[in-house]
Each structure stands twice: as C-alpha cells, then as structure tokens.
C-alpha cells in the first residue's frame, strides 16, 4: 500500500497523465505501479536455461508431471526442492536429445505412474479412464429403460372409466353449468 501512496504523489506522473486525459490517470498509476513492482520479482526468479526452446520443452513436459512432494502441484509450478532437482534432470535429459516419451518413462521407472497426470491406458488404469464413461452410459440406459417402461404402462392402461361417485359428481357439475 505504501508503494501505491508514493506513486500517487509522484508529481511528474500525475502531470503526464493529465496531459493525455484526466480519466486515464488511474490507469497510468496502475501501469507505473506494476513497473515498480516487477523488478522485485525478477530478482527471485530462477535463471532461465541458456536455450529458451529447450526451457519451453522442459516446462511443457513438467506441466504433465505431478510433483511428489506437493501432490496437487505440477512439477513445473512446484517450489519443492525435489521438483527443482527433477526439472534440472529433465533439462539434462533434453540436452542429451531424449524424447518427451523417454523422459516420462525415466520418471515413471523411478516414481511410478503416479507422476503422470495422464496415466497410460492399460488394464491397471482402465477403470480410471473408462469408469466415468461407463457409469454415465449405464445411467442413460437406466433412465431410458425407466422412461420407456412408464410410457408403455400408461399406453397399455388407456383412459380409465369413471367410478360411480365420479359420474354422479360429473352429472351434478354438468347440470349446474358450473363446471364449464
């Protein structure tokens, strides 16, 4: 909040904003405020690998992998020490010219299918992959059967004849003309 207050009081900034349009002033403040903040973050960021293409591939692979320490984070986003080590390992393997599949296989061999956010389709994972689909199909089939059965029952029964009491009441209503 302190930074914000200081920015608001910066004379040159307000002046510049006013020369453009008074309603743009808050926007300018925001822009400059963001610029003031980012250098602080940059200092903490990890240095990128020399090869940005390779770094991007590493991130792409790491996003498909689960961090084992903070299990709801991907390997790409985790700050855990082990995640850092594993990212370094992925980088090294990429530099050796390994394919994405090779790298995933390397990690699965050590940590199991658990590291994959999208585990391979194999008998062990059939329930995981097809379970929801099967459950939905069963539900739809059940619903269709239930509705069909109700329909045919209603069709078979047809309109029911009125009972004596109902007929008597109907007659009364028809005579009075109040039923219309």
């Amino acid at each position, binding site marked *: 909040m302190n930074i914000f207050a200081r920015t608001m009081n910066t004379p040159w900034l307000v002046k510049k904003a006013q020369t453009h349009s008074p309603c743009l002033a808050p926007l300018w403040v925001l822009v400059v405020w963001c610029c003031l903040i980012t250098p602080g973050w940059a200092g903490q960021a990890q240095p990128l690998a020399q090869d940005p293409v390779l770094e991007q591939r590493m991130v792409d692979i790491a996003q498909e992998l689960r961090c*084992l*320490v903070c*299990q709801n984070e991907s390997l790409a986003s985790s700050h855990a*020490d*082990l995640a850092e*080590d*594993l990212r370094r*390992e992925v980088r090294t393997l990429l530099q050796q010219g390994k394919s994405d599949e090779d790298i995933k296989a390397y990690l*699965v*061999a*050590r*940590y*199991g*299918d*658990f590291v994959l956010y999208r585990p391979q389709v194999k008998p062990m994972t059939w329930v995981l992959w097809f379970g929801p689909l099967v459950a939905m199909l069963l539900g739809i089939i059940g619903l269709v059967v239930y509705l069909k059965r109700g329909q045919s029952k209603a069709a078979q029964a047809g309109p029911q004849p009125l009972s004596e009491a109902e007929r008597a009441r109907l007659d009364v209503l028809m005579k009075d003309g109040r039923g219309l």
Partner: protein
Amino acid sequence: MKRRFFLIPLVLFLGLLIFLALGLRHDPREIPSPLINKAAPAFDLPTLSSDQHFKPSDYLGRVWMFNVWATWCVACQAEHPVLVAFAKSSGLPIVGLSYKEIQPQDEEKAPLSFEAKLTLARLRSRVWLGRHGDPYQLSVLDLDGKVGIDYGVYGVPETYLIDPEGVIRYKHIGPMSSEILANEVLPLARTLQKGS
C-alpha cells in the same frame, strides 16, 4: 417390484460411501514404488568415513537395509534410536544414504566447491552420528541427490531392503518404527537370506 426400484439409489449411495471410506484410509503420500522386485540401481559414491567408494554390488550375497537420511531431516532424528537399537539386536547390515546433506541455505553466502561440500557433509554427519549413535555399517554421500532420484526418493527418511541378488524387495516411506522392523522387515530379511 416397485419397492425394489427405490432401493437402487440407496445401494448405489452405500457403494459410493464404502468407496470413499476406503479412500480416506489410504495415505496418498505412500506411493507404491515401481522399484520393488527390480535390481537396485547402481551407484558409486564416496563414503562418510573414508575416501573409499561403495557400490551396491559390493554387498551381493547378503541381505542389507538401505536407509536414506540427512542431519537436517527432523523425521530421521525421530527414527534414529529405532535404527540404532535394530542394528544392534538384529545384526542386519544397514547402509546409509546421506541425501543432499548440503542444502541451498549452506551456499547462500557463496557457492561451495565439490571438495568443500564433501568435507562439510562428512564433518556434520559425523558429529550428528556421534551424538545420536551410528547404526550404519557405512554411509554414502549423495550430495546432488541423483542417486536419490534413481531410487525414487521423494521424502526422507525412506528405507529399502535389498536381497542377496541385489534386488529391492521392500520399501518403507517415512520413519521406521520398531513394530514394522520386527513384524515386516526382519521376517522378510530372514526368508531372503535363507532363499539364497
């Protein structure tokens, strides 16, 4: 017939309940290791006490326990007395893997050379073992954690049991208890030793 239809959602609900209850009892942190019944990954690392190196193949022909530890690891400290007592009573050889003894904060002021890391790790580990007791036949130093990755280590402590053929037969994640050692590890170690 109609009454039975009403039971279907109830049965489904109970099924779901049982499924979820089982899920609650299952600890997601205990990831089954794919390394069980596979050959222990090879390495060649310096030991804590001397410049001699140790390879898993050095221990072919005997059953041994491989315990991942570090002086910075709080859970290891809790586990340690159990290991010290077990090493004395069972006679099962325990090899320690000193995992990433040098932490990033050690290099906060200035990066350390490999030699400096080795010296610091040895010094610190020896002091720690001197204070808490040394259950290990020997300990190897995995400074960069690469051997840890090969063994699928994701939290310290972890413990493996390796058979005379050099195959991993058992893995325990987290601190060892004397119950697990007595009821699971020791009987398994005995059968493995007999089988060879």
